[in-house]
């Protein structure tokens, strides 16, 4: 299986990662090397459909649904670049303006 230049650009769009034209050829080559390598699993002997496997506890341990006091280590104003009148100040995004 070969991943084309266009496919790499498509994957990069899905992953929301800008790729410079200058590095594209190297990236295409490296991704093909990696995907060729992992594709050896397809050649592993077919032993029927096995189960998936996840380590850890058989069932996750859920906490009681109880509100607890969790004091903040830093005040909220220290968690964002800007804070005004009790709110975080974030950039205006054009994508939000049509809504």
């Amino acid at each position: 299986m070969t991943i084309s230049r266009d496919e790499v650009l498509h994957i990069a769009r899905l992953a929301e990662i800008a790729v410079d034209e200058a590095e594209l050829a190297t990236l295409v080559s490296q991704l093909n090397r990696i995907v060729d390598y992992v594709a050896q699993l397809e050649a592993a002997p077919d032993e029927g459909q096995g189960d998936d496997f996840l380590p850890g506890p058989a069932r996750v341990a859920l906490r009681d649904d109880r509100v607890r006091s969790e004091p903040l280590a830093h005040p909220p104003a220290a968690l964002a670049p800007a804070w005004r009148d009790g709110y975080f100040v974030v950039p205006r995004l054009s994508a939000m303006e049509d809504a």
Partner: protein
Amino acid sequence: MTAAPDAVAREVAARLEAAAPLNAVLHWSAGGIEAEARRVAAMPSAGPLHAVPLAVKDNIATLDAPTTCASRILEGYRSPFEATALRRLRAAGAMLVAKTNLDEFAMGSSTEHSAFGRVHHPLDPARVPGGSSGGSAALVAAGVVPAALGSETGGSVRQPAAFCGVVGVKPSYGRVSRYGLVAFGSSLDCISVFGRTVGDAARVLATMSGHDPLDATTLAEPPLAVPETPTSLAGMTVGLPTEYFPADLDPGVRAGVDRVAAALRELGATVTEVSLPHSRYAVPTYYIVAPAEASANLARYDGVRYGPPRPEHEADLRALYRATRGRGFGPEVRRRILVGTYVLSAGYYEAYYGTAQRMRARIAGDFRAAFERVDLLLTPTAPTTAFRAGEKTEDPVAMYLADVFVCPASLAGLPALSLPAGRSEGLPVGAQLIAPAGQDTRMLAVAAALEERVVAAGEVR
């Protein structure tokens, strides 16, 4: 007699200054260490880790120092909370003295993929310390701290422990809370520990282990016990998996593992061959599962939730995402996110991710079958000793194969450790013990028994 925290603080600060050429540390300050010493001195009673200086990999959340994951995208980031593991260690009297360098977001096997420069091997600056927890390994090997925290996703503590000649212990998945460990591959990630000795590593591991309500995947079990060192291993059977001793294995590495096998026999254990036939597929399985999980976990670094603001793109959300992530992540992180996105994408999910998930089950099944016959497994930790910087950076797959013997236990969620096993041509060799899930303490006890006989082995070839 217990050490005075202020004296420890001064000594560690001097050693950190002296170790600066290793580039093993991303954040430390004399003032920060002094503050830790004052905190510990003011504790009403001396804890089990009173005044023990600890270095912590910079993908573990700390309150008073940045947590950057060695990435530009988190440069200067300060966590609003502290990792449970570290909170427990500090409550036991340990002092956080430094945040250590790593491969960016713990993705790498040489600590060359840090945005803040590579870490140098303490014995030969032209070589790598292994990775991704190379900064923590190098600091312990250089004698700056007796123990340090790292993290494992596919061997990132055991492999650098082998390269640097220190003890590296990965607990069973779920033994130590992941709360505050920056997520990479959530079904694999484990906070793990380096120590100068098995005992030091065991004390740190025991203190930070145990159920945590803030991590629903921790096991509902009490903290681990620090084991007594057995004087005899009579009645124990240790398996040597034939697949982990290929014909082209570095002869020095083989000699080191042979030395450990001989020590096991001297202590009364039976050593026998076993087979783990699917372990040969562990690296390709890992490089589907881990990037797939990483591509989801690292979606949060988008320039809005995390990542430096880029005012030039604020008019276009997608442009903001792409610019932040394209410039903020280094090449290896970008490669892994792209591979993960590819194997999870429509049309390829079943062929790659589905196949890898089933192979993961077979790899774990091999271990279960082997542990019906033997109590522990002994293998090399890495196929070679520490390699030269730059040797594998151009070929990602060659780098991935440095983890060929450590990946399988990670996929299976098993406890495993690397024990120093002498040196080959002056460079440390590591031997790996792997135990059944939950038998962390027994594995540590065997390692402690072996330690005296093999650590001082010197040249093995």
